[in-house]
């Protein structure tokens, strides 16, 4: 009933929004700017507007503090990536590029990596950044209060060679070691400010922290001494939990950038006052299957579930078509991706036959848990349940709060089916490690000998081509073995006022405001 009310209200509101919308639809040429071929966003001959240097962007939630070493929340890194720098960074295409490190060298055995630091980098408090700060930062990232400590446990020694040279020695070979230095949580922080980074972050990044009034706004100002200074003087992140308010505020000129879902993007299409940015994202959405359940332990039952769901229809209905169908646990934007959609494509007759073969002729009853804070997952779950009903699987849906989902479903693994999303990483190993039978994040309870083997092999394999083969083999196994029903790799939608330029999306979840500017009218 609640859901019905919600859909009804969304419908009503959208009708009204359409009715109120401006009548410029006919004249405007579609101003869509698609980044789907990972081509760089076109920087037209528009000149930088030097008068307008204050940008307003909406955020749905506050960050989980601003200390990059003490959280795993994307909402924090989206902001802190502007305040802090990392040794290396990642380009929109997923290549590793220099940031605070000017150059680096990896020893022949692959165990030691040495960075040469950039000269003349200063923290927002005016002190120069040196190799000691880098050492301190990684020690802080490794200590027990850090939720990421496990990811950096491999680093055995950090040696300061001189004030601009630093060396990291690792215990065992990690071929994707460099990407560990590019994540926004590998931020370089000054020791003297470490106590209060959560509320008063000080870094070397292109923007200085100015003010954070929780649930109201967070203000950043330009750090003029940055090696690659920003165009904007001020960035205001406005906390607005309601999407309709965000859309209204953009239309009223109170905001310059908002993130939207497929349902709300329609009203901006063809309107020359706005630019719509479509970006592939480094994330996937899936329906996890608890492979320890008696029936679900049978591969045929899992395959039947996969065959019974029309994924494209699901994407069209729930995400308004903004998503790319996937057959395995891999985002389409990453270079190791292979198309596994044809391994099990929609076929209800085959699904029924498999289910019968597995001995579930008279049907089967399963419990599905859906996280209430993610309406899209709830919608998707309900549609999937409906489709499973058609092949004789009765699904009991329970909608739970996010906190409950995390503790009961994710941590305690008390579920049969659940719909959720996973954000990607730069290193394919980090992305796929949860399928190892011994992994703590393997909430599928999935166990496959070959998968375990591959996950061990890839860590040692230094040959890029061979490693690629292993990762692609793994994707194929998952597609066939179905520890989860892989739904889609979502396309994110951002709407900006038409005079905003330089806003790009990255394969890690950050908002890079440094390159953003306003164009002259």
């Amino acid at each position, binding site marked *: 009933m609640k859901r019905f009310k919600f859909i009804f209200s969304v419908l009503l509101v959208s009708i009204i929004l359409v009715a109120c919308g401006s009548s410029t639809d006919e004249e405007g040429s579609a101003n869509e700017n698609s980044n789907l071929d990972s081509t760089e966003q076109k920087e037209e001959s528009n000149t930088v507007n030097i008068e307008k240097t204050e940008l307003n962007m909406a955020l749905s939630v506050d960050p989980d503090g601003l200390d990059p070493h003490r959280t795993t929340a994307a909402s924090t890194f989206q902001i802190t990536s502007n305040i802090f720098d990392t040794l290396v960074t990642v380009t929109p295409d997923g290549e590793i590029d220099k940031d605070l490190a000017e150059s680096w060298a990896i020893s022949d055995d692959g165990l030691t990596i040495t960075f040469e630091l950039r000269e003349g980098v200063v923290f927002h408090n005016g002190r120069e950044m040196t190799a000691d700060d880098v050492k301190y930062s990684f020690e802080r990232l490794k200590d027990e209060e850090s939720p990421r400590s496990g990811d950096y446990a491999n680093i055995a020694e950090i040696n300061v060679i001189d004030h601009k040279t630093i060396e990291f020695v690792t215990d065992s070979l990690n071929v994707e070691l460099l990407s560990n230095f590019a994540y926004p949580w590998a931020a370089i922080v000054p020791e003297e400010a470490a106590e209060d980074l959560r509320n008063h972050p000080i870094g070397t990044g292109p923007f200085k922290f100015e003010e954070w009034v929780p649930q109201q706004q967070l203000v950043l100002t330009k750090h003029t001494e940055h090696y690659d200074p920003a165009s904007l003087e001020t960035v205001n992140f406005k906390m607005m939990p309601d999407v309709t308010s965000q859309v209204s505020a953009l239309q*009223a000129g109170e905001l310059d950038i908002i993130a939207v879902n497929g349902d709300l993007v329609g009203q901006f299409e063809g309107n020359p006052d706005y630019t719509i940015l479509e970006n592939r994202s480094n994330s996937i959405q899936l329906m996890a299957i608890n492979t320890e359940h008696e029936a679900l332990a049978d591969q045929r039952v899992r395959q039947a579930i996969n065959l019974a769901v029309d994924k494209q229809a699901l994407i069209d209905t729930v995400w308004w078509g903004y998503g790319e169908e996937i057959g395995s646990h891999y985002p389409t934007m990453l270079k190791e991706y292979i198309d596994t959609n044809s391994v099990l494509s929609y076929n209800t007759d085959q699904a029924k036959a498999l289910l019968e073969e597995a001995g579930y002729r008279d049907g089967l009853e399963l419990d599905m848990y859906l996280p209430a804070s993610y309406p899209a997952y709830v919608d998707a779950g309900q549609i999937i349940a409906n489709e499973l009903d058609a092949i004789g699987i009765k699904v009991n849906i329970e909608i739970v709060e996010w906190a409950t989902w995390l503790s009961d479903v994710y941590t305690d693994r008390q579920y049969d089916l659940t719909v959720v999303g996973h954000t990607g990483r730069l290193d394919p190993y980090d992305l796929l490690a949860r399928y190892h039978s011994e992994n703590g994040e393997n909430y599928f309870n999935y166990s496959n000998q070959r998968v375990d083997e591959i996950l061990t092999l890839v860590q040692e394999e230094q040959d890029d081509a061979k490693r690629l083969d292993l990762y692609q083999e793994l994707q194929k196994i998952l597609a066939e073995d179905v520890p989860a029903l892989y739904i889609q790799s979502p396309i994110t939608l951002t709407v900006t006022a038409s005079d905003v330029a330089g806003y790009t999306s990255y394969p890690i979840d950050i908002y890079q405001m440094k390159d953003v500017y306003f164009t002259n009218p």
Partner: protein
Amino acid sequence: MLSFIIKRLISGLTVLFFISIITFFVLRWMPGDPATLSLGTEGTPEKIAELQEVMGLNLPWYQQYYHWIQDLFSGDWGSSYVFGEDVMTLIIQRLPVTLLLAAVSMVIVIPFAFIIGIMSALFKERWVDYIARSLMQLGDAVPQFWLALIFLVFFASKLGWFPVAGYVGFDDGILASIHSVLLPAIVLAIGQVGPLIRIIRSSMLSSLEQDYMLMTQVNGLPKTLAIVKYALRGASIAPLTIIGMQLANMLAGAILVENIFALPGIGRLLLMTVEQRDLILLQGMVIFVTSAVVLVNILTDICYRLANPMIRFGGNHE
């Protein structure tokens, strides 16, 4: 008198003590804890246990409770897990927003409800009454979240009469501040006005039927004077009680409008604390709000007693 005040204070503290225990346990019985939430889908049982230790969540419940109460008495309300900010600072930051919202809303509701209520009582079963009652039904029936969105899209975005979102502090002038909460206050007011009109109308009707109204006619008092001076006075008591109760209702309404209009008030903070299991902040807010209610009750009792010695509380042994 002094012993009365002491007695009231002791009973107030007892109430607070039980509230604090109930809050504490209910919150810890809820599935999900701040450590799990903070780690999200990156969490493993080991990492969660580590973080729980850092947050002090691994201690036995009585120790956690004891630490919390001990700190509370020494004036340290603790700090929010999510914002890292002092609980008291956050509450004080938020309170003016919600109070202003409720106040502006009340300023709209009260005159409007009295005028409509009295009119419809005076013109009972005539067209004024029918229109008033239809409007009342409409106000009750329209869901507030829907109304809030419609108002936002139309008055703020389309017409630009109000800011779409955000709160302007008192520093920028009281008028600007009121302007920034006016639209949400109107939405809140529409949800509150129906019941009040109904009460005013019915108490006005019963007041008009009293014998003393006949008396005013007999004495030849002008009708308007009779209504204002006698009928209205008699009809005001019930609505005033309702207004007090509606103030409490407004906090519930505030959660909704504060979210839609992105106002940084108590309601929005409360919603976040529950969703994010920001236990320390949530406990602090519950204690703060209940203390305020208990304190106001004690003061009211004292005032009553001072004003009217006829009222004896808790027996006659004094």
